[in-house]
């Protein structure tokens, strides 16, 4: 298990992702520029499909978490309310 090299690479990746996220947040927080990054309601047909959901069905996700959290030493990353589709 080369966990040390994996985690040092992982931490570098996290730093880069954080920079990308900060840049994205800066763009998103600019009202004029935000329109360039907007997906319009009529463009959301594909996103509304159930196969585009980041979260499994609630009951299925509960069963899956129940198994893996008892078989792995890690938790998290299961997603919170919402999902970003904006298909309401």
């Amino acid at each position: 298990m080369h966990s040390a090299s994996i985690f040092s690479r992982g931490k570098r990746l996290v730093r880069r992702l954080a920079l990308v996220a900060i840049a994205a947040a800066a763009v998103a927080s600019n009202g004029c520029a935000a329109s360039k990054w907007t997906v319009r309601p009529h463009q959301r047909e594909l996103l509304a499909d159930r196969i585009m959901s980041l979260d499994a069905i609630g009951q299925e996700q509960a069963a899956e978490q129940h198994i893996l959290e008892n078989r792995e030493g890690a938790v998290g990353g299961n997603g919170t309310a919402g999902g970003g589709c904006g298909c309401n």
Partner: protein
Amino acid sequence: MQLRRPTFGTLAATVFVPLAVLALSAAPARADDPTEASARLTFFREPSTDNKGITVIHPQVDAASPIGGGLGIAAGWEADAVSGATPAVFGPHVGVDAITSATQFHDFRQQVHGGFTYNRPDAGIGASYAYGWENDYKSHSLSATARDDLYDHNFTLALSYSHNWDSVCDYNNSAAVTPADLHPLTSSAHCFKTDPYIATKPLAIDALETSLSWTMTPRLVVQGGGTIQVLDGFQSNPYRSVLVGSIREPQEHEPTYRQRYAVFARAAYAFPQWRASGVGMARLYEDSWEVQAVTGDVVVNKYLGPVMLLSLRGHYHLQSGASFYRNGEAYRVLGPAGQYWTGDRELSPMSNYLVGGRMAFLRRPQQERSSWFAEMEADVKYELLVYHVDSVDAPNADRPYAHILQASFALRF
């Protein structure tokens, strides 16, 4: 090194209140979600090369319904019927001090839960309560979620928080002078009753998770987020002993405080020409017991005709061991690594991978007004979970894989 304990109540309130205000002050309620009733049965089988292994049967029943004005309620029940055999003492698996005898056990756990949601077009909140009980464990859990859509639904900021008040049955070890004097619990028969040999230990669990989702293109949704979980209380397996040195077999002894952190990224991409999608997740994890982990998960979904949906899944997890973990032979020869010892596979250096698939049958009447339901779904799933531990003396080395079989049925009105 442990950080100062965060004040979760203050933190949660600081973030939740603005989101809740947004949810409650937004535009009129959105169209209600459908009423849904669903049932699911999971069969988990982890065979052993030494004994009868572990079998878990996990039924779930849930119902959710709108009650108007954007409000919805939900309730459910689930259970675990667990049976099998597991060694009462963690020690070497081979050699003159090998421990291969296993104790048979049966347990039955149940949980009921209920909650509500309140959704507006741009925001929503929810709260739920769960109570779980079994012979040797009780759990009360309160959780809350909030989300807010930003910039024409192109971003979603979401937050969830939960707190558990758990009680664990243990042998009354108040007379133990050192951790090496700890006795394991031998039976759950007198748990939560007045018995001088039985004690009840508290365990508090706080979990906070936040995420930001971004609809990047008409085909791509991405999400990034983080999770913090803090456990404070008794976390050992009360029944398990560990052979520490070649003579003593004290009860498993784990720290009572654990901070756990994870950052994650997820994405979903549509392939409309194939009526398919790919969904992926990557997670980095670290905790105050020095467990570090990398996890990846990929699901490919593909419609087969108008009513069938096939999903194929791959999952990989790699982790280091806790700072106080040693395998059975090392505990026997070298003794403990510090003041703690464990026989928990999930605290050992290990990896696993999971492969499987799910087939769903979807029935959506073309003219919903003439049908008594809007959608019916039945699905079956099979997954194979394979473990790789670091030595033959690692915990549960005799149980190298598990089968997961699941079937479910849901109706939406």
